[in-house]
């Protein structure tokens, strides 16, 4: 059962330094249930540091981070049991099938195993007897999301989930993320792809040099920019090259094996 309070993740005045370098400088935001929240920003903006602090992988140096009302700094283990995590570099134990991996993670979380349900959700039922290394990039990301859902988390944190994927695989991950939102999960994702944030996120936070410089719905941000007098010099065409590509090659996922 998701908590009654709509706020799942709360970050207040988070700061983090590595030596003399301030990687995160007083960032605050909330993420609600059934919301996809995007963290955007150039490399080194502090996205991964914020994500890893929520995940309990990095200690909270200053500020307050809580998940479902539980303070991450005080009870990091308890928080890690209630969140789902997809790491930027996906790696699993080799020579275990997808089915075995999902059962293993259920045992690690000490919760009921439901590999069939999760593999069906991420569209990998046919591959259940394969090893993770035999999967294509997109399939591996979807497996990673299935693993992130093993413990029935209240929130899922996805670090660049579509990086390096072809357009079809990227769209399949987007569909999956939308399904997670429909299930009532709070989804936080980092991305370099602006069109991904626009298509997927209910709200986005734009970070630069460790500071939160904008936080709103993508449409609102665009409207605010237009109201400020901004105009594109070239009128955009009603279709993009990606639309051409997808209309020619279709949206169906290509399985590599």
């Amino acid at each position, binding site marked *: 059962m998701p908590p009654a309070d709509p706020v799942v993740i709360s970050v207040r005045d988070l700061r983090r330094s590595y030596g003399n370098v301030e990687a995160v400088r007083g960032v605050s935001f909330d993420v609600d249930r059934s919301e996809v929240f995007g963290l955007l920003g150039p490399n080194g903006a502090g996205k991964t540091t914020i994500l890893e602090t929520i995940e309990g992988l990095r200690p909270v140096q200053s500020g307050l981070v809580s998940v479902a009302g539980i303070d991450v700094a005080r009870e990091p283990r308890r928080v890690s049991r209630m969140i789902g995590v997809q790491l930027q570099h996906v790696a699993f134990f*080799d020579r*275990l099938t997808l089915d075995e991996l999902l059962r293993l993670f259920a045992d*690690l979380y000490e919760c009921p195993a439901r590999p069939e349900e999760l593999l069906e959700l991420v569209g990998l039922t046919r591959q259940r007897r394969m090893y993770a290394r035999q999967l294509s990039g997109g399939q591996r990301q979807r497996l990673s999301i299935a693993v992130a859902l093993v413990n029935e988390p209240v929130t899922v944190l996805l670090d660049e989930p579509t990086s390096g994927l072809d357009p079809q695989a990227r769209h399949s991950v987007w569909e999956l993320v939308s399904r997670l939102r429909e299930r009532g999960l709070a989804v936080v994702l980092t991305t370099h792809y602006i069109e991904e944030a626009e298509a997927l996120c209910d709200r986005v936070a734009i970070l630069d040099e460790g500071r939160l410089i904008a936080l709103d719905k993508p449409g609102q941000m665009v409207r605010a920019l237009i109201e400020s007098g901004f105009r594109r010099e070239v009128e955009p065409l009603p279709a993009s090259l990606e639309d051409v590509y997808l209309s020619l090659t279709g949206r169906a996922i290509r399985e590599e094996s």
Partner: protein
Amino acid sequence: MVRWRPYRALTLAILKASLRNPVASFGFFAALMLVLGGIKYLDSAQLSGPNLALADEASTPASRQLVYALRSTPSLSLTETSAADARNRVDAGRSDLAVVIPADFGATDATNHLLPAQVQLVYRAGGPGDRAAALVRAAVDRVDRQVQGAPPALAAASHVENVGVGLIDVFLPGLLGFNVIQAGLVVAAGAFATYRTSGALRRVQVTGIAPGNLVLANATVNLLLGTVEVAVMLAVAGLLFRHRIDLGSMFAVTMLGYLVFLAAGFAISGWVRDAQRAPAVASSVSLPLIFIGVLPAQFFPGPAAAAIRVLPISLVTHALHQLLQGAPGQDIKADLLALAGWAVVLLAAASRAFRWDPA
């Protein structure tokens, strides 16, 4: 805190993955078993050519005939010497078999019948001496038949000695030591560094389980596979070379040594976190240890020998050598205690050094 369900699941998963990769898990062990077979071959095959030390104290036509017969046996090499020297050569391991033809060999009575006489054979059991003795007995029989008809008068009497050192006594402790270093130190160091660099370790970390679960699961699988390897190697050595070696005590010593090197491997994987560097560091530690382990302590100069003597590999091989020489269990108590001390120190170091992160 180690919890039963995650620990059991990780242990089974790692075991399953290891068994699905038999080349990586057992390739080295298979190579060592081949070496063991090779030692048996060298020990008994014609390659080493049983070497006879022969003393002819008779110099009768019959004795000369026997010497000629032995000289013409292609797989035997013969050195003629005195009776005392022939025995010394066997004791020193320079000859496989001493053959002493007594002065009365080929002597006849008044009716020109051969008087009974026995050729004395001295050799060590379980080595090339066995085969050489059979060849000598056959030659004596032939000479007896040629010199006269029945009843036979000339025979060979054997004196089997149980002293000295065979190839297996030199190599078995070294091979067992070699295996525990490889299966413990090198494999443990490499496995964790690979988990860490690939991110698999981090993936487990975000589930919130204590690292102890993974360390213990890995150690359990390594110990399980190691137990099977050590048991197989000892059983094969027992079958090939001896009917009676104290397998129980040898097993205990080897497994304690294994635990020590496993802990050392975990400690190295904590200090050296890079998957590319960890095996190199493990090898640079293990190769000198293997060298030390295979060579007996007397090969090293005084002060070095004392230091080397307390290294875990020397404790293991020393205790194994003692047991192979027939020493009772209590003679290796000091070695076992010192090994247990190493195990405690290295396990503590490993748990301090353990890190999830690659850098």
